[in-house]
């Protein structure tokens, strides 16, 4: 991934140089070689650059750094470093239960059909609100958090399936799996991004 952007920039620079050459000397296209060059630089290379560029930006838009680059998300970013395992996002982020570089996307995408596409559409709306709309004081989810997103990783995991609390009531696990009892808002794992109390909390400092 780290090499992808420099490689793409090099490809774009090469394309730009060849296009500039063709623009400066269009009579080159009168020869067979010139026609082949024109096809390459006016058709094949630009399409390749755009395809790789969009794919690269799509990948980057999943990064934690990208999500937290808007000012309104600052508190949510800080909440990932709260030094308290009871804070669900912090515990997941700090212990790499989710990839640290895609922490927001991993939990907030939708693991149903077209979930990634819907997440991107929501992202476009966020960009609109950030630059042209009114940023709300309090951010809310579009819909209640679905257990499906938790179960995407936890379903079948020993700690989840055989956990003492999860099995204390035989009706609990089936209800959780059916999304009838929420993992987050049923009094179990209900401390999430506690941004309003950030100033009262202590933070974990990762070792360099």
């Amino acid at each position, binding site marked *: 991934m780290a090499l992808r952007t420099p490689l793409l*920039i090099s490809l774009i620079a090469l*394309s730009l140089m060849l296009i500039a050459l*063709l623009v400066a000397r269009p009579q080159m296209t*009168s020869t067979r070689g010139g026609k082949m060059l024109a096809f390459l630089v006016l058709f094949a290379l*630009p399409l390749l*650059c755009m395809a790789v560029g969009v794919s690269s930006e799509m990948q980057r838009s999943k990064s934690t750094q990208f999500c937290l680059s808007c000012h309104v998300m600052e508190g949510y970013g800080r909440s990932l470093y709260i030094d308290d395992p009871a804070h669900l996002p912090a515990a997941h982020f700090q212990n790499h239960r989710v990839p640290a570089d895609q922490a927001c996307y991993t939990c907030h995408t939708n693991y149903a059909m077209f979930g990634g596409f819907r997440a991107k559409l929501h992202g476009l709306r966020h960009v609109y609100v*950030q630059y042209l709309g009114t940023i709300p004081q309090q951010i809310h989810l579009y819909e209640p958090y679905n257990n499906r997103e938790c179960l995407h990783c936890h379903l079948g995991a020993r700690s989840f399936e055989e956990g003492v609390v999860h099995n204390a009531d035989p009706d609990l696990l089936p209800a959780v799996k059916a999304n009838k009892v929420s993992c987050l808002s049923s009094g179990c794992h209900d401390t999430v991004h506690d941004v309003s109390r950030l100033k009262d909390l202590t933070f974990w400092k990762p070792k360099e």
Partner: protein
Amino acid sequence: MNLSSDLERQLQRSGLLLIIGLGIEGVCLLWARPIAFVLMVAAGGFFCAAGVAVYLYALVSRKL
């Protein structure tokens, strides 16, 4: 009108559109902000698509 110079002019037009489109894409790749993503897809994509379309049109509209 000289057919070959007409074609060359259209290829130049296509090249200029592509230079703008790819230029926008390059800048957006270096500028890691959410707005850059939208700019790249909307503006960069538009100019590149227009450049490719002008090139293809130049080929098919050429009188043999």
